[in-house]
């Protein structure tokens, strides 16, 4: 540093500066090139492994679904056990399990849920909830909700109040899947505005998971937060909850907010037409 300062003082800094910069740029390019090559090789390797693992996993899971094989029996295969210790194998297994679970219902889905619990994958999902990284938490929440682990509800609903919006949406989505209307009751006292994207996600979760119990949605109309009221009105409209019309009438009559009044009246028109 002192040397550079001396050069600068003497007015002869340009050449050393340029030389140093050129070396720096070349070294930077070379390092990035090596990282790119390593990353590409890593991807190729992962792809190959994923294909190999998928063959094993498909065999195991089809045996679990169609041949009533339990995890205890699967464990007897030493090759499987060795692979099961590998994090990447567990990752691929979890992915396959989730994809299969999405495609099956009833007894087949229950068998997959049992496998999820017996294999200990459920523990890793719970562990993910404790991670400091929000994206890992999101993963854990998604997994637990997919396999209908109702015991996770309390932990999940806590994250629906998180500051990170994506985590909030993922948690709410999961909570709605697990406990329906119960998950959004706290929104009545919610102070911050809920933007349209989040509202759309909540409505989407109700539609997607075909939540049967819709008791309590009307409470959203009692909120002091206009965005929560708007959400309630949208939910009533999209889910065509005509039984909630008296609450909408009450809202239209009593609210002093003109936008909400207009929305409520327009909803009444739509649902009574």
């Amino acid at each position, binding site marked *: 540093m002192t040397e550079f300062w001396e050069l600068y003082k003497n007015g002869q800094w*340009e050449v050393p500066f340029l030389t140093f910069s*050129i070396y720096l740029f070349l070294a930077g390019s070379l390092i*990035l090139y090596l990282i*790119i090559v390593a990353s*590409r090789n890593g991807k190729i390797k992962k792809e190959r492994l994923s294909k190999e693992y998928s063959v094993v996993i498909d065999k195991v899971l089809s045996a679990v679904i169609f041949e009533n094989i339990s995890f205890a029996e699967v464990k007897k295969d030493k090759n499987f056990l060795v692979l099961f210790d590998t994090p990447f194998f567990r990752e691929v297994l979890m992915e396959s399990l989730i994809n299969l679970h999405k495609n099956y219902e009833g007894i087949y889905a229950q068998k997959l849920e049992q496998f999820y619990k017996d294999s200990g994958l459920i523990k890793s999902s719970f562990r993910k909830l404790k991670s400091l990284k929000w*994206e890992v938490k999101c993963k854990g929440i998604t997994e637990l909700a997919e396999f209908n682990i109702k015991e996770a509800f309390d932990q999940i609903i806590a994250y629906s109040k998180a500051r990170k919006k994506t985590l909030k949406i993922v948690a709410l989505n999961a909570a709605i899947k697990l406990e329906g209307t119960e998950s959004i009751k706290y929104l009545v006292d919610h102070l911050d505005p809920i933007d349209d*994207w989040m509202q*759309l996600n909540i409505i*989407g979760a109700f539609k997607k998971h075909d939540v049967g119990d819709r008791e309590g949605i009307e409470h959203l109309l009692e909120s002091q937060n206009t965005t929560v009221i708007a959400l309630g009105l949208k939910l009533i409209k*999209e889910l065509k909850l005509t039984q909630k019309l008296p609450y909408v009438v009450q809202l239209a009559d009593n609210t002093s907010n003109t936008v909400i009044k207009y929305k409520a009246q327009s909803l009444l028109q739509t649902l009574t037409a």
Partner: protein
Amino acid sequence: MTFFNTEITWFLDVYILLILGYAILIMSSYLMLAYISTKELRKYLKRNSFVDYDVLLTSEFAPKLSLIAPAYNEGLTIEENVKSLLSLNYNNYQVIVVNDGSKDNSMEILTKTYDLVLTDLDFHPQIETKKIRGIYTSRNAAFKKLIVVDKENGGKADALNVGLNIAQNPYVVCIDVDCILDKDSLLKLAKPFLESYGKRIIATGGVVRIANQCVIKNGRLVEVNVPDVMLSRIQVLEYLRAFLLGRMAWGKLDGLLLISGAFGAFDKEIAILSGGYSTKTVGEDMELIVRMRRYMLDNKLPYSVSYIPDPLCWTEAPEDFKIFKKQRSRWMRGTIETLSIHRRMFLNPKYKLLGMLSVPYWTLFEFLAPGIEFIGLIITAVFIIFGLLNWHFFFLLLFFVYSFAVLFSVIALYSEEKTYHKYPKQADFFKLLMAAFVEPFYFHPLTVYAALVGYKEKIMGTKGWGEMTRKGFTKKE
């Protein structure tokens, strides 16, 4: 004589300092933007991996969009392109194709393919445009989303204004009809309009990529390839640098001055209140964004412009120099015109980041850079003639700039590799890497030359786009 020598030495020193200072300023700003972009890109991808776009697809509360596709002499590809626009993954949208007085058989093809009939559409034009000859809709219920407007030729901006007048939805998506859109592009473009509370999102822009030599089937991109032709290949790299390393950062800083005319969504009300597209400039896409922003700032309305880094739109890049020169000189004219129209914003604190950073940046590094390079070249030539050039220093400086250009291209490749990984073939990666080494010697001088032509055209008062012939997408055999 001694005095004269001292003067020359002083001039040389100042000249070197200025050149170096400018180079360092431009390089550090590029690196800074690249850093912000890369960081933001990773965050975006992380967030996006948990986004369920299906909620937009199935909801009646999804923003209602009107796609405006101006077409001029697109007969060769219009049938397939409109078909692909009609089959995008989105429910609440209509497609408005504006035939801008094409001289070819575009209108006949559209009428025949989509079974069009004249219709009496009730609309109240708010922007003045050229005369509309007729508005058509389809008799076939399968094409109920389609509206075709046949109008007198008035240029792209005029055609877009017709679309703005006719659009029935609160958001308009302006696209080039010959672009290939990703099937989910509208879902991604619409989402930001829902996300902001208390701040109005006035526009969202997506990333445009080069589709030359990619495989297109039924209006969809099915295989990504890197072009063999060097000019278009380097443009792949150039677009990566611009969209992945530049605009993403400007988006984060909320200082984006340009949303590509090839693909962008706008809040119709604000676009119309700002006056719509200007027909007085060839850089109508940039000018509209600047004007909309200026409108919001002048009226003290909280707003934001959003940027989606996903590769949503694929376009054809010029493969021969003549067309490339036309395109780039037009871009330069557009930049000059926009900066000149909005010169009051330059270093004006009233316009916040836009006035204090975005506009000065564009002035210094986009508008003036080619001119500065040209002047530098002339001065260097004079030094050579008079034997004043320090060859050692000259080559060192040249290599300094060259090595930075290579580094910056490699950063773009790194960013692409770590994010979208759209070029998985090894051969394609090496083609792009080779392009990074060739670019400063081959492509950069061409862009500078084209920009200088743009300066000249602006001085000479050239108006309009000129004929832009496209080859159409070709499949790699």
